[in-house]
């Protein structure tokens, strides 16, 4: 916006005879602007100087580094959580034997068990020490305990298999 509204100390350049003609010139020039083509050319030059960024350019290398670090940390955390949920405990095979009535532990050969026509199940209390060979944990404190078990025995009373019913 053109104007002469300012005060300069010692401004002696105020000639009233020029004020009106200059105002007329200002009025005539007010609508004069750069041709529209100039703006188009400048914006095209801007686009050449700053080409459109691809999505992977939106983050700086530092930001990418931070994102990678965070992603890796999150991945490790998720994997650790999944592993902790699915990691087998040291009693897994025993718990399976306790929960699943079909999981008998063979004490004799499979052929011998299959050939036994009159096998039957009996309840028995088995000393824990006798089960140490089957993986049942035995400590000095529980060595004297017994474990409730179901035993598959043959017609002659020989043990063929057993499963643990309770593990105190």
């Amino acid at each position, binding site marked *: *916006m053109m104007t002469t509204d300012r005060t300069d100390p010692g401004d002696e350049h105020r000639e009233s*005879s020029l004020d009106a003609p200059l105002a007329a010139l200002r009025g*005539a020039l007010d609508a004069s602007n750069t041709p529209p083509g100039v703006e188009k050319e400048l914006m095209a030059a801007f686009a050449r100087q700053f080409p459109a960024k691809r999505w992977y350019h939106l983050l700086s290398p530092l930001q990418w580094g931070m994102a990678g670090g965070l992603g890796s940390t999150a991945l490790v955390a998720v994997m650790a959580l999944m592993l902790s949920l699915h990691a087998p405990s040291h009693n897994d095979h025993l718990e399976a034997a306790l929960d699943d009535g079909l999981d008998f532990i063979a004490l004799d050969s499979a052929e011998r068990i299959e050939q036994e026509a009159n096998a039957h199940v009996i309840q028995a209390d088995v000393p824990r020490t006798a089960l140490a060979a089957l993986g049942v944990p035995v400590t000095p404190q529980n060595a004297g305990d017994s474990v409730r078990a179901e035993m598959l025995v043959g017609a002659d009373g020989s043990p063929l298999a057993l499963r643990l019913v309770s593990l105190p």
Partner: protein
Amino acid sequence: MTPTNADTDTELLRQMRSGTAAAFQALYRRHQGPLFRFALLRSGSPDTAADVVQEVFMGLLTDSFKFDPLRGALPNFLFGVARNLILKHEHPRRREESLAWDEDADGEQSGDGSEQYEPLGRLLSEEVAEQVRRAIALLPPHYRDCVILYQLHGLSYLEIAAICQVDIGTVRSRLSRGRAAMAKRLAAHRPDTINAV
């Protein structure tokens, strides 16, 4: 982030340099008018004025002119750049004009302006405005700078001194002589028109 009218030139420049096209566009639209009008009056040619404005903003885009906000406002910097570009454009005939003015320092310069500035004449419909335009066009370039920037753009002596890279006293004397020459020419050519306004 979309630039707003309230954004300062410095903020728009920062956004422009980070690749925001809208900031560059806002800067251009904010300053192109005054720059074009200055270049138009200073050079007398709409084509030259458009070229100058384009060169000014190309320089701003590529930072080839090294604008420093601590050294002054952007508009004055742009005026200074435009002035230097115009000087470069008119360099071949500047020497002749300067010599002619030196020989006829009271403003009665041999007039070659009417044909030379004909393109600008098409833009100015009012007769008085055209007379003033011609009077300005016939001033020596260094007087013309001061008269245009002071009378039509409202800049202070200090700002004009910075743009023209001269001291304030020089601005004052150039302005005084320029105005006197203009008044004399206008009174001599169309006294009835001038007095009627």
